[in-house]
């Protein structure tokens, strides 16, 4: 067994979790994160285009290895079969799992879907209405953002992280900024941490409201969908009032934040947040007492805690399965003092648990914003706070889970940047959750994760 595999195995046994794996300069780099948040990069060589797979030790690395195989031409020995992921092979057998049987057949959906939905292709292997297996083929929206960012300065590269995805714009650009600040030996001041934490929670606020609306849409419950869509609109209007942009674009920079709030603006924000909190509480109560809606939720799309851990689930989806995973507990660069992850009473890992997870996290977000918005916000900058290095890692809890950004540089020019978002981590979990369920429940299962295609595809 090669040495890097030993190291990976020992760290995993000691409680570390997989963060990301990517190809760089004739090596494959596996990033693990320890329970207290420290990150570790394990380098393994690529010899004659071959590297040893770690997928048997870390099943969560499956997509990462397939991506590195497609984009960097690396063959992972021990990863069998190594199916294409980013490359779209017209030969169906090359990328789907063979499902055989007398009555088994396939249903192809996408890349263009019936509603206003991002592009991606799903191939369901079914018997009757029962899903036996789901092969998801994403990366229709692959724009080559990581490659295109190479050679850029810290400031020039942030657009590639931010515009990977509008839904996670703050999370992605903050992970990128943290990675650079880590590499350049910079630490944020307390004021900067607070300003950035407010932005991150404002992003979580509109996303969680949007996700609750989406679950209502997933069962065709139009009144619930419209009510929460209205609340999402309120949250985006608040974003615009505070930062000039409904998706908080361009608020994060390497070493800074543009969120500056006067006493009047803070008062306005608190008033708006109070109104959104009241209205969402009332609307949530209506969802709880709507029996035909609630009947659709339990025991659908179940992900057990063991499966969530093995597959590397992150974010609300992981917490709804009973994992106390939240990057905010170890975000020392942000103002999450004594943060404890929350979970609903019932963590069954089904659609109902993932929906209730959003609701309890919303309450936490309102509380966090209320405590952070108690004085004018005036971010300063970063101060020296660590050693400089040619590689930096940033890890941020996005609305969909832990997002990791790695930056490698020479003389402050990007040599390699890699972004692994919460959505990327959770897509294989969606496919797993769908198996065994009825096909008409898939929209609901999918919406209970509400993952972005854009930041997985990049």
């Amino acid at each position, binding site marked *: 067994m090669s040495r890097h595999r030993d190291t990976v195995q020992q760290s995993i046994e000691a409680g570390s979790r997989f963060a990301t794996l990517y190809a760089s300069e004739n090596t494959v780099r596996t990033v693990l994160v320890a329970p207290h948040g420290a990150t570790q990069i394990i380098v393994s060589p690529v010899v004659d285009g071959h590297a040893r797979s770690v997928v048997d030790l870390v099943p969560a690395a499956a997509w990462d290895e397939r991506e590195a195989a497609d984009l960097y031409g690396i063959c992972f020995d021990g990863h069998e079969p190594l199916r294409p992921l980013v490359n*779209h092979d017209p030969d169906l057998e090359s990328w789907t799992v063979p499902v055989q049987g007398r009555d088994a057949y396939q249903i192809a959906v996408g890349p263009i879907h019936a509603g206003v939905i*991002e592009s991606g292709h799903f191939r369901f292997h079914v018997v009757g209405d029962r899903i036996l297996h789901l092969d998801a083929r994403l990366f229709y929206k692959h*724009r*080559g953002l990581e490659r*295109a960012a190479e050679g850029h300065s810290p400031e020039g590269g942030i657009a590639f992280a931010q515009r*990977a995805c509008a839904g996670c714009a703050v999370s992605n650009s903050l992970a990128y900024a943290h990675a650079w600040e880590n590499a350049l030996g910079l630490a944020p001041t307390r004021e900067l941490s607070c300003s950035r934490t407010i932005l991150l929670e404002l992003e979580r606020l509109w996303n969680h409201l949007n996700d609750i609306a989406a679950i209502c849409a997933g069962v065709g419950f139009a009144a619930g969908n419209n009510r929460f*869509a209205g609340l999402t*609109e309120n949250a985006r209007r608040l974003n615009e009032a505070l930062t000039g942009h409904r*998706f908080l674009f361009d608020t994060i920079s390497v070493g800074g934040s543009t969120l500056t709030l006067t006493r009047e603006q803070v008062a306005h924000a608190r008033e708006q947040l109070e109104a959104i909190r009241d209205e969402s509480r009332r609307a949530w109560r209506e969802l709880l007492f709507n029996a035909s809606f609630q009947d659709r939720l339990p025991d659908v799309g179940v992900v057990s805690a063991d499966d969530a851990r093995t597959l590397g689930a992150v974010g609300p989806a992981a917490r709804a399965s009973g994992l106390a995973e939240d990057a905010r507990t170890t975000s020392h660069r942000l103002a999450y003092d004594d943060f404890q992850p929350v979970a609903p009473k019932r963590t069954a890992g089904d659609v109902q648990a993932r929906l209730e997870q959003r609701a309890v996290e919303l309450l936490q977000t309102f509380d966090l914003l209320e405590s952070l918005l108690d004085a004018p916000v005036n971010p300063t900058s970063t101060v020296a706070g660590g050693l400089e290095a040619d590689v930096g890692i940033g890890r941020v809890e996005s609305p969909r889970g832990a997002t990791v950004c790695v930056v490698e540089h020479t003389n402050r020019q990007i040599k390699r940047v890699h972004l692994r978002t919460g959505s990327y981590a959770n897509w294989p979990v969606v496919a797993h959750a769908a198996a065994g369920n009825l096909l008409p429940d898939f929209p609901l299962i999918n919406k209970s994760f509400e993952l972005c295609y854009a930041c997985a595809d990049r």
Partner: protein
Amino acid sequence: MLTLLRDLRRLRQTAALPRPDRGRSLALRHVDAGSCNGCEHELTLANSPYYDLQRFGLGLVASPRHADVLLVTGPVTSRMREPLLAAYNAMPEPRRVAALGDCALGCNLLGTHDALVGAVDEVLPVALRISGCPPRPDEIAAALLALIDQKNQHAP
């Protein structure tokens, strides 16, 4: 449920847009050709109670075969070029293509030459351009309503 419906009625009464005074309709089919999902999020809210495009006869339909307008977001990626053309070719005539958002218009595109084809008008004839990164729901609504007005002017 009654509370929800009452809330929704109140929202519609305070909606940002005026009441409809137009007699025509357009069926829209959306295709995401590689966007960051911002335009999708705003288009979704253009159908929420604050804007409610359906009041103006602007409905999003499930198939390009039912559509008058193809609403395309994002820079066209090389992997979405063929599906986009297939959707356009499936539409009945007369048909129009609307490019929604700065990426679709070819502004500040980010990505590699291999992965991107470019602006929507490199692939399809664009009749309506809606700029913004992303355009707000009211801007999307205003641009589409102008297209209806244009259609009404041409009508006999």
